[in-house]
């Protein structure tokens, strides 16, 4: 079997060019198979190998196959012999006996062609499948996609492939994404892309098709209790708690929470001055009875904008950073302190960590050095007697701060603090207040409520305990009216 294959191969490679073709076909096929087995067995795991296996090998394979007939054609031209003569010369008279369809050569070529088609089919499916994998998206254009890949891996959607949100299903989506990908290859090669990359708000699949596969609005969400711990910039880095009971259920009429906006009963549409979707021109809601209430921005900062971005509100209008989450430095530091990665026993560590992580460093190496130098010099200068016993803690803090920096800052893509702000809530950006504010009014002069307790009950707001307002109020406390008001509001809200 092997011998007859080798004989065939020898015979088919007429000249040097033909031999190159044969070698390409054979080596790429064998390598493909070996790597495939390796990957199936879990021996080969490197994501870059996928690029070689599923992109390079099939290409070489096809190239080799194309070269072989080319060599034959060239040989015929050069020698002036007919194909029959050449065939007989290579395979001997017994090979071509029976002529055309009956000959041994024909049978061998036919079998091999079938095999090739099969191999190519499998390789193509494998290739498409590989190109759908997050590893491909995240690492193929390494320098460009690195920030998104980094944040994706740390996100709640790390188990959902990029294409599930960015490409979607169906032939149209596939073709679209491949055309887009081709253009991206060109722009990456010739350095035509913007830094930082603008959020692809228009290319994103509609949330109805993507997000709602897992998070559907009819689901009962109830309310969600969330405590945010922040630390003061004092020597103790004193913890301060803010606890919100977020009213997130779509809810029934008159008792709705934040997800009212995406309840199938409602439709909220808006026009914003540009596709950053930060400043509204108007916003309107269609009520179940079909009537529409429109609220118009009476304080536009852009005179006479053309309604550039007209949208029906869906998940991403608030959850615009559901996956590629860039943190705020203060909050990232607070979180590392809370997790114990930054030790609060170091005096002023919160203040110093924020200062260090905010330093403008040109590269990761510079950040590592700068953060270390900043922290060590502060403690050496301020606590010369104690610093020697704190080195381990300082080391640990430096590592945590560098991790924060590396996750959020990408100088190559010009991503610094605040490059991609989040619309969720109202701490990074106006968020909810983009529409819920008193400048946006309907014909009767009413505005969309911006009442604090509309979307959340507040059980502590920068207090020393996480449920401060559920505790009895101190008679002399200066904020006693607020304490009691918020306690009562919460208790009433959970009764309903």
């Amino acid at each position, binding site marked *: 079997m092997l011998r007859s294959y080798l004989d065939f191969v020898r015979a088919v490679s007429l000249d040097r060019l033909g031999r190159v073709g044969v070698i390409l076909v054979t080596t790429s096929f064998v390598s493909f198979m070996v790597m495939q087995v390796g990957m199936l067995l879990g021996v080969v795991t490197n994501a870059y190998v996928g690029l070689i296996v599923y992109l390079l090998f099939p290409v070489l394979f096809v190239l080799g196959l194309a070269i072989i007939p080319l060599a034959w054609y060239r040989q015929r031209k050069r020698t002036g012999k007919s194909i029959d003569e050449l065939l007989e010369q290579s395979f001997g008279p017994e090979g071509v006996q029976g002529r055309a369809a009956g000959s041994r050569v024909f049978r061998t070529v036919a079998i091999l062609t079938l095999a090739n088609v099969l191999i190519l089919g499998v390789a193509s499916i494998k290739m498409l499948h590989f190109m759908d994998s997050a590893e491909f998206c995240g690492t193929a254009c390494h320098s460009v996609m690195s920030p998104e890949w980094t944040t994706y891996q740390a996100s709640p959607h790390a188990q959902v492939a990029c294409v599930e949100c960015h490409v979607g299903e169906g032939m149209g989506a596939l073709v679209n994404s491949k055309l887009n990908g081709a253009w991206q290859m060109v722009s990456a090669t010739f350095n035509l892309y913007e830094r930082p990359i603008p959020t692809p708000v228009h290319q994103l699949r509609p949330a109805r098709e993507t997000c709602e596969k897992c998070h559907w609005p009819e689901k009962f969400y109830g309310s969600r209790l969330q405590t945010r711990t922040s630390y003061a910039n004092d020597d103790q880095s004193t913890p301060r708690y803010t606890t919100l009971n977020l009213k997130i259920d779509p809810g029934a009429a008159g008792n709705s929470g934040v997800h009212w906006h995406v309840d199938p009963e409602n439709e909220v549409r808006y026009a914003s001055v540009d596709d950053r979707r930060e400043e509204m021109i108007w916003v309107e809601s269609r009520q179940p009875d079909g009537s529409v209430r429109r609220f118009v921005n009476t304080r536009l900062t852009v005179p006479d904008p053309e309604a550039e971005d007209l949208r029906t509100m869906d998940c991403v209008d608030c959850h615009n950073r559901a996956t590629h989450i860039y943190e705020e430095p203060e909050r990232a530091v607070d979180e590392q302190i809370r997790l114990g990665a930054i030790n609060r026993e170091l005096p002023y560590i919160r203040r110093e960590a924020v200062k260090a992580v905010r330093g403008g460093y040109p590269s990761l190496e510079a950040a590592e050095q700068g953060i270390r130098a900043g922290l060590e010099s502060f403690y050496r200068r301020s606590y010369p007697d104690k610093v020697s016993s704190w080195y381990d803690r300082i080391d640990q803090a430096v590592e945590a701060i560098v991790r924060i920096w590396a996750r959020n800052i990408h100088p190559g893509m010009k991503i610094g603090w605040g490059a991609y702000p989040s619309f969720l809530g109202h701490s990074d950006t106006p968020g909810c207040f983009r529409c819920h504010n008193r400048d946006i009014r309907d014909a009767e002069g009413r505005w969309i409520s*911006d009442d*604090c*307790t509309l979307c959340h009950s*507040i059980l502590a707001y920068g207090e020393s305990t996480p449920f401060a307002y559920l505790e009895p109020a101190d008679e002399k406390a*200066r904020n006693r*009216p607020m304490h*009691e008001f*918020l306690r*009562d509001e919460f208790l009433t809200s959970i009764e309903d």
Partner: protein
Amino acid sequence: MRNISLIVGICLVFSIGAFAAEDPKVAGACMTCHKEKSPGLYKQWFDSEHAAHSVTCLGCHQAKKGDADAFSHYDATIATLVTPADCGRCHPKEAEEVGNSYHASAGKILDSADAYLAHVAAGDPVAVLGCESCHGGKVEIDKSSPNKLARRSWPNSGIGRINPDGSLGSCNACHTRHSFAKAQARQPEACSKCHLGPDHPQKEVYEESKHGNTYFTNEELMNLKADSWVVGVDYAAAPTCASCHMSATKTQGITHDVGQRIAWTLRPPISKHKDNHEVKRANMQDVCTACHTRTFTDGHFYQFDASVRLYNEKFAKPATDLMKLVREKKLLENPAAFSNKIEWTYWELWHHEGRRARHGAAMMGPDYTWWHGFYDIAQHFYFKLLPQARDLGDPDVDAFVDQILSSDPMHKWVREQTEDLKKQIRAGEMQKIYTRFFEAEE
């Protein structure tokens, strides 16, 4: 003593009334949002004495439905504007004193020469920002404004603000919102929002004086936050503006009627004694003697009064008479006030350098008395006012000027020889011309 108990009693009754009117539930809602949306405002209030005494948002901002500036804000009817009448619900004594003070009448400047000049020479926005910011404007109601206050007239924290409820003034001119601290009003910075600049440089005079000097050197010894702040008892390092003009001494209570210790009014072209000036002078001397002996303060006022009379007699009266003559004879080219150069010269003579000189003398600022004061007056009198008057080419005016320069012993020097004048100074003859200012009794 009985008076004080009565006042305290009234305060208590009023305060209980005011607190009872507050719905703590509504105040709690106010705090919730404002802590988030205007955290600085919330923090100022939180750290204030008001917060310590359970005076919350509604204590000051609650309004009645019919009030001109009342508007509906979430579940409450409130007013943005808090007037002395509102503050007076808990602080009736202070509100009454403020109402009687010269400060409260500062808004009436709107018909004065200053306001006229701002309107004609500059324009309305300057009248709003330049004049009314300090003097206080008339707060107008605009029904279409979210808080019912017209934007042209609000914000305004001028000390003589004319409020829609008829009250005059604005407590936060000195007790800046939302901490309303006593300590802040006790510091010279509270006054120097307005009392500074070319026409009334009280701040600069104070900074130059020994009083300012010691204050800025010893600020930490001033006990500014103490409840009781009696000069010589609770602090002694230095006096501030408030110490002399308002705060308590061992014998005088604190007053918000800021003119009660001032004998002269140094504001007009020719200085005048105020009504009951002897009592007012005694009030001031009482403050001085917390730190100085009587002979020391007597000496100061002897020197100060002499320089005021000198200003009046040597420059203010002849200049004023000259201008009167010029106007009576209709010698000016343009009809409107301030449309002729000589009017600006005369104006600055008394309104700018004239006041600088007098305030410098009043508050121990040597440089303001002389270089920024009398030196500028003299230069502008001899080399601007008189030549500009002569340029009008009127024989009566010429005669008037000649009469000043040749027969008034204070001005005759202009036509004499330097050596002779020096001899007169060395011999003490020149000084004798001015003896009458030290000894004058009025």
